[in-house]
């Protein structure tokens, strides 16, 4: 590749560089690079496809499901139409009752009434039986429909059910997010807090955060000295120790969790030993599992390698001469450690903390097994709504809030520590 002679001659305007045969250099370079780029893309393509199908699409669908609200529009289209002009104060007009009667007949025939009944039940307790029972006798309804419906069930005479249908008669709804933060719609349509005995999710979010912070701190506290030892011991011993650290990775999660139950329960090994030693009385056996303590202990054990490995890899790269230099400059062992060694391990601390925190914030199985009541985390509630109550919209809303929370924390972390400072290995 040579610069065109004309361009390099004094006084001539500098034109684009060209190769020896006159093709612009940029074009020629792009051509040469294209093949390499295609190869690189083909190499990552399988993983890219895999990630799109297993991660991007599910997450997208979860985000969508948290606001998706098709049922009422589909099953009660006439009622939704008729309620458009309703002011929400008085009993809706006769046209709305008529539309409802018609919708119910059709829903009963199409067997779709159950779905809309379940959906409305999320908004108003008792709505399910109200709809299903009335729908069963929908063929008996006759004009004037208001009287006929109220006859069938007096609750049709209240505005509550109509308000719920009007509010949720839209394709997309914020209702799941409203309930996910312990709020509800008041009868006048405004948003208010749930009565105190029905607030669960905010408390659980906070508890999930606290437990994750506690687990992150304990893993850091326990992992730091181990990682230090691993990084400084001769290879022969450090390999053995590394196996001990990795052992939790190599055993089944269930086996480990069960082992913790055996150890920690009130009739378990640890309590037996304490009683036998006379440290506690037989009546004073300590509750160490089926509560928050159980969750913290078991999850610390499980997540410890995620803290130790990044710490180890960072510490391995710190030559001993730094601490030696600090010592020779007059720092006592503690100052040399704290002012010179620890700051250099911060990338590892950051990586380990982010890993452990993000894994633990969404952890499900261990809290479910050893968490009892006080050790439940938000993911257990999400699982409950996925599997038992089948309120997928609420589960999706809770999941979305969790995801948003993690992203916000990640952003804050990036602002304070800097993601570039994270070293994962």
């Amino acid at each position, binding site marked *: 590749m040579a610069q065109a002679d004309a361009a390099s001659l004094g006084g001539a305007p500098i034109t684009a560089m060209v190769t020896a045969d006159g093709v612009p250099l940029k074009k020629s370079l792009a051509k040469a690079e294209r093949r390499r780029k295609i190869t690189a893309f083909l190499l990552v393509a399988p993983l890219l496809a895999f990630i799109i199908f297993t991660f991007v699409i599910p997450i997208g669908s979860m985000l969508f499901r948290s606001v998706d609200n098709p049922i009422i529009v589909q099953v009660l289209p006439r009622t939704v139409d008729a309620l458009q002009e309703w002011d929400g104060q008085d009993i809706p007009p006769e046209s709305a009752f008529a539309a409802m009667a018609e919708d119910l007949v059709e829903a009963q025939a199409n067997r779709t009434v159950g779905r809309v009944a379940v959906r409305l039940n999320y908004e108003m307790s008792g709505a399910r039986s109200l709809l299903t029972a009335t729908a069963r006798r929908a063929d008996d309804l006759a004009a004037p429909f208001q009287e006929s419906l109220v006859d069938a069930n007096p609750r049709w005479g209240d505005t509550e059910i109509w308000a719920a249908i009007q509010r949720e008669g839209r394709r997309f709804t914020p209702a799941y997010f409203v309930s996910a933060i312990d709020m509800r719609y008041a009868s006048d349509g405004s948003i208010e807090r749930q009565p105190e005995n029905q607030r669960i999710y905010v408390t659980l979010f906070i508890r999930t955060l606290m437990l994750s912070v506690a687990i992150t701190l304990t893993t850091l506290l326990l992992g730091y000295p181990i990682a230090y030892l691993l990084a400084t011991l001769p290879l022969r011993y450090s390999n053995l120790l590394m196996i001990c650290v990795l052992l939790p990775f190599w055993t089944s999660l269930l086996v480990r969790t069960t082992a913790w139950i055996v150890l920690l329960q009130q009739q378990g090994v640890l309590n037996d030993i304490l009683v036998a030693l006379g440290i506690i009385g037989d009546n004073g056996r300590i509750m160490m599992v089926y509560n928050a303590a159980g969750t913290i202990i078991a999850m610390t054990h499980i997540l410890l390698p995620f803290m130790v490995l990044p710490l180890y890899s960072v510490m391995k790269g710190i030559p001993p001469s*730094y601490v*030696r230099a600090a*010592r*020779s*400059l007059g*720092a006592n062992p503690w100052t040399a450690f704290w002012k010179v060694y620890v*700051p250099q391990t911060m990338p590892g601390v950051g990586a380990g903390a982010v890993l452990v925190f993000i894994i633990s914030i969404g952890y499900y199985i261990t809290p479910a097994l050893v968490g009892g009541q006080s050790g439940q985390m938000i993911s257990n509630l999400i699982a409950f709504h996925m599997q038992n109550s089948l309120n997928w919209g609420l589960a999706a809303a809770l999941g979305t809030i969790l995801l948003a929370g993690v992203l916000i924390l990640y952003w804050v972390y990036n602002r304070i520590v800097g993601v570039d400072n994270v070293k994962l290995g």
Partner: protein
Amino acid sequence: MTNVSAAADDYGFVRFANVQKSYDGEILVVKDLNLDIAKGEFLTMLGPSGSGKTTCLMMLAGFESATYGEIRLKNERIDNVPPHKRGIGMVFQNYALFPHMTVAENLAFPLRVRKMGKAEIEDRVKRALEMVELPAMAGRMPAQLSGGQQQRVAVARALVFEPDLVLMDEPLGALDKNLREQMQYEIKHIHESLGVTVVYVTHDQSEALTMSNRIAVFNDGVIQQLAPPADLYERPDNAFVAAFIGENNKLKGKVEQMDGQSCTVRLEDGSSVVALPVNVGGKGEPTTLSLRPERVVVAPAEGSLPNAFEARVEELIYLGDHIRTRVSVCGTDEFIVKIPNAQSHARISRGEMVRIGWAMEDCRALDA
């Protein structure tokens, strides 16, 4: 380099006495080391890797403990003094500048741990940076400096708290040749202007020769020779030192005859050489003759030198200031002669026979 004897009363500023060191309880890395270092001296520990020189330095700094023997600093035993209370500055091979601190913070570190006042710290940091000619770099991070600049900061940091003794562990090993030579002079000048005692470890003989008052040549855990640079080069005590310092022609033979001033050595090919007995047993003992290539004279006047031989020129390498000539003589074809590139030098060509000779004093009979 005679100024060392002037400081003789200060000898024992640093003293190693019968120091032995073993890491595994089987092999002695340092065998019975005795070494006195004078105040203000620049002493270099020179030797191949694994010779025990760095171990000695680490024992002096306090990062390794002596297995046996004692180490004294200013006449006080320091075996049980932890490194941070020894007050010894140290420059490490990889500089060990703290990567998370700026240059100024690095320099302030030893002052801060000594709880100095803020104004005094600032003042000293400023002066230290001026000493190494980097006053504008105070706010930079070490990673933003070039290798030579990092090296200077490391030297400044080891000196900023005004220690009496500074240890340097191959501090120039990572620099390229030109920069290394420049830094050698700078460190030497800093040493001269501050009067601080320096113990310097290197495996580079030219570095040792350039900078030191005295050089301790280490091999196999033992000091082979402790002498000023000129002595070391011109009067090596044994075959290891002769071979390790500078280029050296080796001739092996047996002592045939010996009187006080000279000896006659019969080489393996039967030729006989008159040499200066330095480190030989008696008659009949094997010996290695050491002869510097620049001391060999080409075409000497007849009868002017006791040793004169016919040599065949095998190879000529032009090196600018001299021509390195390999000849075969006295049963070896690895004999090197340095012919200075002067107007009067002999013009010789490959395959030619030339007459070479050397003086008795330049040919030292050492241990076999």
